């Protein structure tokens, strides 16, 4: 079975490292690249398209809200999971309206993160 390709975008490398630790618990997942912001993510997606993008909302250059909308316009099949620190319901609804497939808080448990990823990919 081919592995699912994942891309991570977050301006904090330390959080990307943490996510890599969590994702390594499933052998069927492969992180194909990381990006510092939404623009870098979109540029890299011109070369290699992942099955799932996991990204922060608040990023410099291009934030997760704009990046989600542009990804969905250009690559509608790619699933987008936004992981951020904002927990306001209206904000999350706004994000979902822009095309996000899932939303999690950054302090979510690893089991919760993996369950959401499985739900989106399998």
């Amino acid at each position, binding site marked *: 079975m081919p592995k699912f390709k994942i891309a991570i975008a*977050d301006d*904090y490398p*330390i*959080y990307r*490292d*943490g*996510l890599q*630790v*969590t994702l*390594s*618990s499933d052998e069927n997942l492969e992180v194909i690249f990381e990006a510092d912001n939404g623009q870098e993510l979109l540029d890299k997606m011109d070369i290699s398209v992942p099955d799932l993008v996991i990204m922060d909302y*608040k990023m410099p250059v291009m934030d997760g809200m704009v990046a989600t909308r542009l990804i969905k316009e250009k690559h509608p099949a790619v699933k987008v999971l936004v992981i951020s*620190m*904002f927990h*306001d319901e*209206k*904000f999350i609804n706004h994000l979902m309206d822009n095309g996000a497939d899932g939303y999690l808080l*950054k*302090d979510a*448990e*690893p089991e919760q993160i993996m369950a959401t990823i499985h739900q989106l990919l399998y």
Partner: protein
Amino acid sequence: MNNNITLLVIMGIVVMLGLMLSVLLAVMFNFRKKNQHRRAMEQLKEMQQNQLIEAAIRSEETERHRISDTLHDEVGAILSSAKLHLLGIKQTTLDEKDKKLHEKGAGLLNDVIKRVRGISHNLHSNILKEFGLNEAIRHFLQQVTGGTLISTDTRLDEAYKGSTPEHDMSLYRIIQELINNTIKYAGATKLEINSTLVGQELVVSLIHNGNGLSQEDFETFSFRKEGLGLKNIRNRILLLKGNISFFKTSETSTVRVSLPI
């Protein structure tokens, strides 16, 4: 001859009256000028005082924003990553003692994450910017009273669509400070926040069943060094050209803030 004397006397009186009138006019003019000068100085003093308050408030907001962002983004990312790393340790490789330590560490980390997020939100609310004053008040109230014995209710006038960002931020800070004071000092178990838009004036009322401040308490404490929160409220009200009133009955305490918008 007599006529000449009479004429001279009359002329003398006229000249004297003229001189007296001139002196009187000069005195009045001088007095008016001094009054104008005093008023101008008072206005200048008030303007300078308002500018100082405004600068202090702006600098406080900038600093709050900076600390809040650092806590939210940088510290938040590090803590969340620490949690993912810690919980990435396979439980099966640990003995019973280490499992307990691991569990304890994860619990403490969760607690720190929640506290840091709470502090960050108190310092600066993105909700105010994104969703307006009413939503920010509801969110803050829920955040600070959630998990406590205080029951809350809000009836906020949705006709109020917001003023300038600075105005709304100041009003939000006033309400935040009043809520914090109620929770900390009043011993209330019920807290209600209402707002009404009346013409060009927004009236916000905080009503609770605890032992709140009286108008006299507010006037006294807001000038004391230790009453920094109340002093901030007074300064913000002054700057927004609003009013704050405190009422107490045997059962309820009410704070009423009215501001022109």
